[in-house]
C-alpha cells in the first residue's frame, strides 16, 4: 500500500470565496440552464417537496371526508380524483424524483467524481420529469377538454382497465395521466442510465465496486431495476392511448380485449416500483445508521448481495397484487412463495442494521431518530407483507384498509422516514447550514406519533372489512371511531410536515454553520466544503477503503487493514 497518511487529496480546500451572487434574474437563469449535478439534485428535491405538500393536502382532504360516515365535504367524484392524484403524485412526482434527486446530489460526491457522466442528459431528465408533473396537474384545468369545468383522473393510481376506456372515462383526464407518466417515465429512464454510467465509469482512483459506499451501490441497483420496470408501464400507457384514440382493443373487453393484460402490465411495473422507491431509502439508512452508531456497516458484502437479491426477486412477485383476479391455484402458490422469499434478503438487511447499532455509541440526532423510526416501521411493514403474501388471507385483506396500512408503512414509515433522515443528514452539505435540531425533534416526534395513530389503526379497519377507495361508509359498520382516529393522526402528520418546511426555510438563513463534516462521517462527500464547489474536488481523490475519511481520521487503525 502506498502512503496512507493523506489518501484524499480532494480534501484540500482550495475553494474560492463564494462568488458574488448576481441579480435575481441571473441567479434564476443559472438554475434553469444548470447542468451541475448538485443544482439538479436540489431542483429534484425541491420539486418533490412541493408535490409532497400538494399530495399531502389531498390526503388531508380525504381524511376530512372520511371523518364522518355519509360526510359531504367532498363529493364522490372529487374524492375519487383526490385519491387518484394523491397516489399518482406521491409515487411519480414525490417518491421517484426525490430519490433520484438524492442520487444526483450524493453519488458523484461520494464516488469522487466531478459531475454525472452525462450532465446535459441529467438536465433534460429533470426538466422532462418536471414537465410530466405539470401535465398531470394541468388535468385539473384541461381534463374535460378545456370547455366548462375541469376534471382530473379519477380511476385510482392503478387505473385498472376497462374503467380507463373512452366508454367509462370520457374527457381528457386519463390522457393527461397517461402522457404525464410517459413523459416523466422518459425522464426517469434518462436519470437511471446516467447513474449507471456514472457509477460504472466515474469512480475515483482506488474505489473498486466493493469499496463503493452502500448508498451508491443501492442507487446502482435501483437504476438497473428502473430500466427494467419503467418499460412495461410505458408500454401499457401506449397501448392505452392506442385503445382510446386509434381504435385498439388491448383492454377493450367488449371487443375481446383483456382487462387482465393491463393488470399484469401494471403490476410488472408496479411491484418492482415499490423496490425502486424503497431501495434508495435503504441506501440512506446504510449511510446514516453506521455514522450515528459510530460503527462500520455490519456485513457489507451481505448488504450488497441482499440488495441485488431483493431487486432480482422483486421482478417475480407482481401477481401477489392479483390473488383475487382468479388465477389458478398453482399460480397463487408460486407467487406466494416468490413473495415470501423477498423476506429473506430483507431480513438480512434488518439484522445487519441491528448488528451495526449493536455495540455502538448511538447518537440520536434527528437523522438517526428518523432512521430508527424507519427500522422499527420497516420491520412491521415486512411482517404485514408476509401476512399479505399468504394468498388465502390476502383474499380477505386485498383492497382493504389493511393493504392501505401496509403500503403506507412501507412508503411513509420506511421511505418518507428515510427521506427525512436523508434531508436532515445532507442538508448541511447542500446549504452549508445545519437544520435546527429543536425543530427537527418536534418534526420527528409529531410525525412519528401521527404516523402511528394513522397507520396502526388502519390495519384494524381493514380487518373489520373496510375496503379502500370508498368516499363514504355506513354508520352501522362501526368504522366511524377508528376513521376519526386515523384522520386525527393524519392532521398531526400534516402539522409535522409544516414544521419541517418551516425548518428548511428558516435554517437556510439562520441555521448554524455546518463546516465540511458536521456529523463526523466517513464518505468522500464530507471531505469537501459545504456547499461543495461546482467542481466538487480540487484534485482527484484516492481511496483505500470503504471509509476514506475514517482512514484519514484514524491513521493508526485504518479500515483497509480489515476489509477483505
Amino acid at each position: 500500500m502506498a502512503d496512507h497518511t493523506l489518501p484524499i487529496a480532494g480534501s484540500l480546500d482550495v475553494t474560492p470565496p463564494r462568488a458574488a451572487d448576481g441579480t435575481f434574474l441571473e441567479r434564476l437563469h443559472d438554475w434553469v440552464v444548470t447542468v451541475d449535478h448538485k443544482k439538479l439534485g436540489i431542483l429534484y428535491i425541491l420539486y418533490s417537496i412541493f408535490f409532497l405538500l400538494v399530495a399531502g393536502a389531498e390526503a388531508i382532504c380525504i381524511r376530512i371526508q372520511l371523518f364522518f360516515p355519509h360526510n359531504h365535504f367532498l363529493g364522490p367524484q372529487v374524492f375519487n380524483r383526490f385519491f387518484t392524484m394523491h397516489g399518482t403524485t406521491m409515487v411519480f412526482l414525490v417518491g421517484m424524483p426525490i430519490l433520484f434527486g438524492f442520487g444526483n446530489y450524493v453519488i458523484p460526491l461520494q464516488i469522487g467524481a466531478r459531475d454525472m457522466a452525462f450532465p446535459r442528459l441529467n438536465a433534460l431528465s429533470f426538466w422532462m420529469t418536471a414537465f410530466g408533473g405539470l401535465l398531470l396537474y394541468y388535468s385539473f384545468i384541461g381534463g374535460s377538454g378545456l370547455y366548462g369545468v375541469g376534471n382530473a383522473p379519477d380511476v385510482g393510481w392503478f387505473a385498472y382497465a376497462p374503467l380507463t376506456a373512452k366508454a367509462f372515462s370520457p374527457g381528457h383526464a386519463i390522457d393527461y395521466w397517461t402522457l404525464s407518466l410517459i413523459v416523466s417515465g422518459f425522464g426517469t429512464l434518462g436519470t437511471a442510465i446516467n447513474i449507471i454510467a456514472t457509477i460504472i465509469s466515474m469512480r475515483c482512483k482506488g474505489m473498486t465496486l466493493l469499496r463503493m459506499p452502500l448508498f451508491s451501490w443501492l442507487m446502482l441497483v435501483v437504476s438497473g431495476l428502473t430500466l427494467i420496470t419503467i418499460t412495461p408501464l410505458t408500454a401499457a400507457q401506449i397501448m392505452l392511448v392506442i385503445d382510446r384514440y386509434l381504435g385498439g382493443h388491448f383492454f377493450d373487453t367488449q371487443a375481446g380485449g383483456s382487462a387482465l393484460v393491463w393488470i399484469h402490465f401494471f403490476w410488472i411495473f408496479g411491484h418492482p416500483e415499490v423496490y425502486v422507491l424503497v431501495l434508495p431509502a435503504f441506501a440512506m439508512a446504510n449511510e446514516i445508521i453506521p455514522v450515528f452508531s459510530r460503527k462500520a456497516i455490519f456485513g457489507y458484502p451481505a448488504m450488497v448481495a441482499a440488495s441485488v437479491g431483493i431487486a432480482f426477486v422483486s421482478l417475480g412477485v407482481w401477481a401477489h397484487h392479483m390473488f383475487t383476479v382468479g388465477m389458478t391455484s398453482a399460480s397463487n402458490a408460486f407467487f406466494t412463495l416468490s413473495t415470501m422469499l423477498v423476506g429473506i434478503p430483507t431480513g438480512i438487511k434488518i439484522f445487519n442494521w441491528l448488528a451495526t447499532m449493536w455495540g455502538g455509541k448511538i447518537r440520536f440526532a434527528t437523522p438517526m431518530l428518523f432512521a430508527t423510526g424507519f427500522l422499527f416501521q420497516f420491520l412491521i411493514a415486512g411482517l404485514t407483507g408476509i401476512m399479505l403474501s399468504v394468498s388465502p388471507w390476502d383474499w380477505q385483506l386485498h383492497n382493504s384498509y389493511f393493504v392501505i396500512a401496509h403500503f403506507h408503512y412501507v412508503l411513509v414509515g420506511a421511505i418518507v422516514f428515510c427521506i427525512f433522515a436523508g434531508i436532515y443528514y445532507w442538508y448541511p452539505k447542500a446549504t452549508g447550514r445545519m437544520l435546527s435540531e429543536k425543530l427537527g425533534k418536534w418534526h420527528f416526534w409529531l410525525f412519528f406519533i401521527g404516523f402511528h395513530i394513522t397507520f396502526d389503526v388502519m390495519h384494524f379497519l381493514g380487518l373489520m372489512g373496510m375496503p379502500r377507495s370508498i368516499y363514504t361508509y355506513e354508520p352501522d359498520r362501526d368504522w366511524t371511531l377508528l376513521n376519526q382516529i386515523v384522520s386525527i393522526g393524519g392532521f398531526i402528520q400534516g402539522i409535522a410536515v409544516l414544521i419541517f418546511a418551516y425548518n428548511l426555510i428558516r435554517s437556510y438563513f439562520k441555521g448554524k454553520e455546518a463546516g465540511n463534516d458536521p456529523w463526523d462521517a466517513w464518505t468522500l462527500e464530507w471531505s469537501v466544503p459545504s456547499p461543495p464547489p461546482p467542481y466538487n474536488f480540487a484534485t482527484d481523490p484516492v481511496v483505500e477503503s470503504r471509509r476514506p475519511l475514517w482512514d484519514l481520521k484514524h491513521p493508526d487503525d485504518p479500515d483497509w487493514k480489515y476489509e477483505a
Partner: protein
Amino acid sequence: MLRGRTFRSIRLSLRAGLYLLLASQVAFAAGPQSTPSIFAPASTPADEVYKLSLFVLAITGGIFVVVGGLLAYAIFKYRARKADDNTEPAQIYGSTQVELAWTVIPVLIVVVLFLTTARMIFAIQDAPKPKAALDVTVVGHQFWWEFRYPKLGVVTANELHVPLSSEKTPLPTYLKLLSADVDHSFWVPQLAGKTDLIPNHVNTTWINPLHPGMYVGQCAQFCGTEHALMLLRVYVDTPDQFATWVKNQQQPAVHDAQVATGRHIFETQSCMNCHSIAGTPATGRFGPDLTHLMSRATLASGATLNTRENLREWIKNPDHYKEGSLMPAMQLSDEQLDQITAYLSTLY
C-alpha cells in the same frame, strides 16, 4: 431513559393490540355481525382462512417480539451517554457465522409458512363441487349486483339469498362471477375472501354458510364514481325460508289493476329500457330486475332503505342517495312519481 421507555411502551401497546385481535374470536358470537370482520367467520372458506391467519399472526407476532425487542434493547443499551469519553466503539465488520444463522432461520420460517399456505390454497380453490351445490351467477354492474339462479329461474339484485349449509348436509353455493362493464370484486368478509368480477373473464368462488342471518359486504375493487355505495347483502336462509323465497321469486310480477296508471307510465317512459318486470313488456337489462322489488330491504344497491318515501325520492332524483349512479332523473311530475311509486310498491 425516556427514549427506551417510549419505544418499549409502543411495542407493548402493539402487542396488546395483537392480543385484542386474538381475543376478538371470543368476543364475536357466531353468526352475522354489523361489522363485517374477517375474524368473525360464518362460512367454510372464511373460517379456514381465519384459522390460517391466526397461525400466520402467531409466527409474525413472534418475529416482531424478538426483533423488535432486540431493536429496543440496542436503542436503550447502546445510546451515546452524556458522560462519554468520545472514543469510537470497537469496529466490527461482519461475522460469517452470525450472518449465516440469520439467513437460515428465515429460510426455515418461509418453508413452514409456504407449505401451510399452499395446502390451504389448494384445499379452498380446488375443492370438488358437491352435486347438491346451488349455482348462482353474479354479474357486476356500475354500481349494483345482478344475481341469477340459472337452475331456479330466479333473477334478483343486490341482495343474495342462499340456503344454510351444515356439517351434516353440506349445501354450498357456487358463484360464477361476471362483469357487464368494469372490474368489480365480490366481498362478504364473514363468508369468504374476495374474488374479482372481470369483464370478458369468468371467475368462480364458493361459500358454505353455517349460520343463518344477513351478512353485509361490498364491492372491493374500485369501479367508478359510486364504488363506495355498491353495497351487498347476503341472506343465509334456513331451507324452509329459502324454499319460500325461491317460490315467491319464481312468480311473475303481481298484477294489481288499482295501479294500472302507474304501470302505464312505467311502460311508456324510459324505465323499461333498463329494468325488467317479469310478465310485462319491460325487459331491460341495464338496471336491476324489479319483478319482486318489494321483497328487497334496500334500494340503489344498499344506498338507502326500501321504504315508499325513499323509493319516490330515488325515482325523482337518484343523485339524492347516490350521486353518480347511472339511473337518470326522468323529470317526472309529482303525480307521475306518485303513480309509479304506487305501482312499484305492489311488486312483492
